């Protein structure tokens, strides 16, 4: 296991009058080379959990292990951890500060103390991966569009070449086109490099088709942690906590209830179409 979360609980502002557990007894295993979706509605503790994974927050109770070593141990190198577990915050474009795009992406690798050629090589590679063309390298980050800014910010983390990449709501506040672009880029990245990606979102549609595994969070606890099909089978329970399964799940379940023998486990439109075709060809015969 690359990362292991062992009975972790976390309390913001210990002792404040209104504080309740933001994380409550979380156990997780995060292996290498997996695409994981983390779902939960606002305030369910997703961001809090993600900030634990690279040591920005220290658990109130419990432990987190990276490659078998406790990351809150005194002699643990947290800077190394932060380069291995790259965290892209929500609205990452708010962290841009350099005078040009290229320099901003260099910030991460520079902090790792790498030689200059290596830094620039990594920055160029990262910018290429997120689809920022060369002409933009010398532009001020503040001249870019919202979606472009965000991709530059993601490149800033990618340039550290993490083994695990965490993206906290990377599509928040983007228009549908910007959203599609970012998600496409993440999928491509997964295909090319096989790094573990944790994609945090409050929308199932964002993650349903592509991830290997879905973690559903609710009120600081893990509600489900399974392959997408198994998670969507609980679509009624998901609804009760304010989440929705992909629309395909609803259609297939409605069809099944009205007497058609379709496969309710279909999560993508292709699978659904395939299942429907089978049913109708059987009926036709």
């Amino acid at each position: 296991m690359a990362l292991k979360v062992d009975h972790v609980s976390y309390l913001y502002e210990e002792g404040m009058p209104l504080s309740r557990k933001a994380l409550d007894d979380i156990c997780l295993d995060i292996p290498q080379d997996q695409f994981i979706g983390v779902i939960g509605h606002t305030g369910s503790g997703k961001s809090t959990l993600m900030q634990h994974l690279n040591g920005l927050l220290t658990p109130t109770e419990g432990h987190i292990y990276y490659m078998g070593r406790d990351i809150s141990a005194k002699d643990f190198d947290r800077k190394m951890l932060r380069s291995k577990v790259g965290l892209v915050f929500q609205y990452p474009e708010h962290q841009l500060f350099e005078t040009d795009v290229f320099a901003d992406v260099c910030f991460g690798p520079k902090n790792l103390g790498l030689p200059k050629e290596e830094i620039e090589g990594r920055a160029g590679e990262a910018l290429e991966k997120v689809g920022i063309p060369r002409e933009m390298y010398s532009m001020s980050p503040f001249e870019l569009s919202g979606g472009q800014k965000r991709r530059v910010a993601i490149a800033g983390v990618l340039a550290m070449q993490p083994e695990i990449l965490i993206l906290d709501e990377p599509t928040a506040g983007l228009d549908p086109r910007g959203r599609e672009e970012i998600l496409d880029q993440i999928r491509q990245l997964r295909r090319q490099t096989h790094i573990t990606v944790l994609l945090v979102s409050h929308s199932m549609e964002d993650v349903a088709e592509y991830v290997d595994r879905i973690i559903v969070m609710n009120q600081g606890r893990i509600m489900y942690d399974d392959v997408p099909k198994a998670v969507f089978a609980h679509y009624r329970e998901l609804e009760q906590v304010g989440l929705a399964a992909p629309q395909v799940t609803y259609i297939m379940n409605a069809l099944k209830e009205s007497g058609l023998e379709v496969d309710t486990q279909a999560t993508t439109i292709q699978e659904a179409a395939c299942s429907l075709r089978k049913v109708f060809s059987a009926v036709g015969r």
Partner: protein
Amino acid sequence: MLRDITLGQYYQTDSVIHRLDPRVKLGGTLLYMISLFLFENIWGHLLAALFLAAVIRISRVPFRFMVRGMKTILFLILITVTFNLFLTPGEALVTVWKLTITREGVRMAVFMVIRLTLLIIGSSVMTLTTTPNNLTDGLEKMLGPLKLLKVPVHEVAMMMSIALRFIPILLEETDKIMKAQMARGADFDTGNLIQRAKALVPLLVPLFISAFRRANDLAMAMEARCYRGGEGRTKMKPLIYRRCDYIAYLVILAYLVCKVLAGVLL
């Protein structure tokens, strides 16, 4: 780490003190501060401490929160104590090298610590039990007469309430940006002074940009709701004294009388 700053931080609970008119609390705090510097004797300070303890008790704010504010001015207190200890002329107690501690110096230092502590805790009680909005409302109303002298009281009060409102927002923002840069390997706690100052650039630039963005948004939102300054503007909840406010004034008055008596007689 940044959340330890209590200044302008309201503690939500329900108590008589919380419900008092902000003018009572502002006036009371001011009078209390003056009373601390009126006379110099231990009985007077004891009375002041007891009075404050009673108010804290009634306010239902845990004592921990009062002391939190102290941390930030601990340095100031230390300096005051050092200066008072060594620089007050009088009967020598101990002499170390060229520095002399005098009996008067010790006395001054002790009283200074007591006064400053009571002063800070006293004003913390006010900010902890009064929402920033309420506080500026009270201030605006109290300073109302200055309008006759062409002082822009409303504008100043509005600026204050906006500034107070922005403190927690900017603290939160600082926390977020700091974490985001730490995730990119930034290091804010090690290195020499110059390295540390340099390390602040990735924090300060985004912080300023975000502050400007928020200020711009706020100005837009105020314009969109036709804000034009104080002229002819009415309040949704005008401040009106109630019975408990008058009682509070009486209590403060009684305290002042006792304090003066203690100062004169003892």
